[in-house]
């Protein structure tokens, strides 16, 4: 295996990090398969791969969060035995986790000094820390108030606190795990400027992401992971998104699903000026107006965290509307008083939620119990006041054969099915109700490739049967191959709408960053 183009050519320079033969299993899952990796000092090195390819596990091993079953870690040419985070910190590795590791009730300063307080009594260390913090903030233009409470800061600022934490500990190597997943495009731009500054100062940055755009824009070298294995190393300048995506997926990406022209009929879902607030009272969906007609798939695109989840949950009756209205076949179904998830189901709305484990099923239940969630009061499932488990078993077996769920055992615990089979069961439960409107969020997240095609086909089949489908996905490929119309959201508002035939990654990307669709198309025309 000699694919070390990127790292190999700079041979004279000692690599900042070198991993040799890292191997890790979690039970039956082989998360990392004999991984080799070299990261040059003073570069930004990207690691790409699909969700579940093993990127985060690899970096967690590097940061001492997990122990590898086999393999060695070398930092600056020296063999390091990294048993815990403290060892990683000691050799100059810092990590910004996908879910921030911050204490929200603490100030920025307290968060930064946690673990390196500089003495048993805080006072001794705090003043010095404040000085040092000021210096770091100046050097890397990380404007942040050291006395602000972290819980009050925006997500972007919290991420800067994480970077500060690493720098304050003297990190020479900074690992960022999916850092832009929760950022607005502006915040992401700022982050990349910070990373450039870090590089100029001679630091090494490892950027983990599944977004090719970011890799192409920000990195010097890139390594690709697929199903736990490291499959390629490239210089960013010498590769293309097409090549990388092919390497990530392992075969030519199925760009367009074979499907006929949509044949939209009457409007089924009509959303007008819908506003949704989260539990803290922050407005997450702002004046959304759009519709979905029978016989079409409307896709909602956007960077994760721009209000799509809240929109979908409101339409599913899980969140209340603060303002605006929602109509289903002309009848008012504005979520809130009297209209909850159960009521919407009765009116023919099926909902495949974004988060399978948190929302779509109870993993501790058996498959047949999971198969009636939301429909447990269906008369077909009752025998007097009792549940008719025979009928439920039969119905579940039917779902399983119809949607090719394996193993087809209604009594098996839901947790024991693979992600793809769990998702197929959820889809079966919702689709086989023959709903008027199907709401689908991230239908193929954490689903194996074989199941993706199946799931996509079933969603298109719903459309062809004359049903309305609303699809929310952060995967642009998925939106572009499934949707007939694409609505783009940014910061809770709908930026605009384009026909799928007119959409391409660039136009959608600009719109996701908040650029008006006409301007986006104009910019595309010039390019």
């Amino acid at each position, binding site marked *: 295996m000699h694919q070390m183009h990127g790292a190999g050519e700079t041979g004279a320079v000692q690599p900042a990090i070198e991993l040799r033969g890292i191997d890790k*299993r*979690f039970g039956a899952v082989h998360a990392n398969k004999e991984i080799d990796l070299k990261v040059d000092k003073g570069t930004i090195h990207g690691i790409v791969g699909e969700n579940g390819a093993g990127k985060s596990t690899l970096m967690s091993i590097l940061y001492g969060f997990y122990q590898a079953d086999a393999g060695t870690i070398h930092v600056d040419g020296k063999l390091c035995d990294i048993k815990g985070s403290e060892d990683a910190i000691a050799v100059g590795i810092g990590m910004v986790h996908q879910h921030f590791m911050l204490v929200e009730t603490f100030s920025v300063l307290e968060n930064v000094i946690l673990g390196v307080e500089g003495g048993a009594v805080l006072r001794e260390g705090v003043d010095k820390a404040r000085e040092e913090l000021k210096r770091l903030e100046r050097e890397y233009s990380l404007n942040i108030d050291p006395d602000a409470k972290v819980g009050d800061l925006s997500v972007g600022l919290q991420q800067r606190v994480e970077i500060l934490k690493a720098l304050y500990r003297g990190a020479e190597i900074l690992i960022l795990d999916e850092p832009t997943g929760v950022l607005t495009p502006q915040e992401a731009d700022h982050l990349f400027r910070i990373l450039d500054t870090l590089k100029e100062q001679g630091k090494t940055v490892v950027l983990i992401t599944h977004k090719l755009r970011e890799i192409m824009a920000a990195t010097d070298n890139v390594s690709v992971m697929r199903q736990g294995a490291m499959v390629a190393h490239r210089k960013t300048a010498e590769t293309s998104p097409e090549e990388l995506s092919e390497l990530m997926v392992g075969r030519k990406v199925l760009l367009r699903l074979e499907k006929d022209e949509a044949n939209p009929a009457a409007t089924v879902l009509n959303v007008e000026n819908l506003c949704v607030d989260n539990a803290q009272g922050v407005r997450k969906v702002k004046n959304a107006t759009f519709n979905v007609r029978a016989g079409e798939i409307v896709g909602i695109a956007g960077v994760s965290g721009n209000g799509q989840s809240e929109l979908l949950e409101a339409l*599913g009756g899980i969140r209340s509307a603060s303002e605006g209205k929602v109509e289903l076949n002309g009848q008012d179904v504005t979520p809130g008083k009297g209209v909850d998830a159960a009521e919407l189901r009765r009116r023919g709305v099926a909902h495949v939620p974004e988060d399978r484990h948190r*929302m779509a*099923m*109870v*993993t501790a239940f058996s498959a047949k119990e999971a198969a009636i*969630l939301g429909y*447990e009061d269906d008369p077909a*499932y009752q025998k007097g006041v009792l549940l008719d488990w025979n009928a439920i078993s039969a119905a579940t077996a039917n779902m399983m054969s119809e949607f090719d769920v394996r193993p087809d055992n209604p009594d098996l615990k839901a947790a024991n099915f693979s992600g793809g089979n769990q998702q197929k069961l959820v889809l079966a439960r919702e689709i086989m109700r023959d709903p008027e409107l199907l709401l689908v969020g991230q239908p193929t997240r954490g689903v194996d490739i074989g199941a993706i095609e199946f799931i996509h086909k079933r969603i298109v089949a719903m459309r062809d049967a004359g049903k309305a489908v609303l699809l929310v996905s952060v995967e642009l490929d998925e939106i572009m191959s499934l949707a007939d119309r694409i609505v783009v959201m940014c910061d809770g508002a709908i930026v605009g709408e384009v026909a799928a035939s007119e959409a391409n990654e660039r136009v959608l990307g600009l719109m996701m960053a908040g650029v008006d669709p006409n301007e986006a198309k104009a910019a595309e025309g010039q390019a």
Partner: protein
Amino acid sequence: MSKTVELPRWIDVGALPLLNLLLALVVSGLVVLAIGENPVEVVEILLYGAFGYEEAWGYTLYYTTNFIFTGLAFAVAFHCGLFNIGAEGQAYVGGLGVTLAALYLDFLPFPIMLVVAMLAAMIFGAAWAYIPAYLQARRGSHVVITTIMFNFIASSLMVYLLVNVLRPEGSMTPESEQIAEHLRLPFIHDIAGALGIEMASSPLNLSFVYAIVISVMVWLFIWHTRWGYAIRTVGANAVAATYAGLEPGRFIIIAMMISGALSSFMALNEVMGVQHRLLIDFTAGYGFVGIAVALMGRNHPFGIFLAALLFGMLYQGGAELSFEIPTISNDMVVVIQGLVILFTGAMEHMFRPRVTKIYTAWRLRQDAGEAA
């Protein structure tokens, strides 16, 4: 890290809890040794006290009755993800309901009274559980702390009522009047006697039969009705419940009220069956035993029945024990109860990794053997 195999059901719900129980009993034996007595002798006396003669059986089952009710009470709330520590207070207030019904509606014939008393117990017990339930569901106040507080509040309230309101004129003891003879639950030995079967007299009464009926009903409710399904869904994953249109707050309140009602049935046994009046602290910690019983019985009515029987045996045998060996008091039973909760509840996961490892090794060897 090596591959692991999922444990089969018989180990998961059978062998593991038994192993934990065994450990609790072994430690109890060590306690007995430590205070200078012979554990074997203690076990002998315990068993004799619990089952050795006809009367003992009656007493054992009388205690069992209480524990079935309080164990079921804890289990129903537990299935909804709630720790109802308040069975003690709920049963106490439920006893007030039974007493009031029996004292003020004493003109009713027995069969009607039976239903009325049951309803009174349910309503009072459920009402006492309703406040912590409401606060948990609608205001997010943690039900563990509020139910503990409500036990103390119930205790103060009942002392006040017994001293100032329910105490008959001229009586010095803080307890209510006796309930009318025709309203008492018949003793099993009387029923047997009426059927021509000779039985030693004991406090065992009709409520034991009722406890069995209720156990079956709880089993049906939890696993065979859509409400039970809803309660289990809320307990296992409240977000999924909301997604399904099952509003968690609503089922939290329902589960807690059922739990309160079940605890209060203990009062039927105590007030209507045995004491025939309302006594200070008649609940005597039985509500807390319910926690141990439910945890040991894996929150399943059948398991609860077995665990309740074990504790009934310990309580009755323990009484014999303190009679036979003066240095060992009834408190030995409380110690065992604490150890059982500790080992089968708090430390239930202690052996799991090791047992899983051993089982996996055994299975792999089996598979290898078959392959060869």
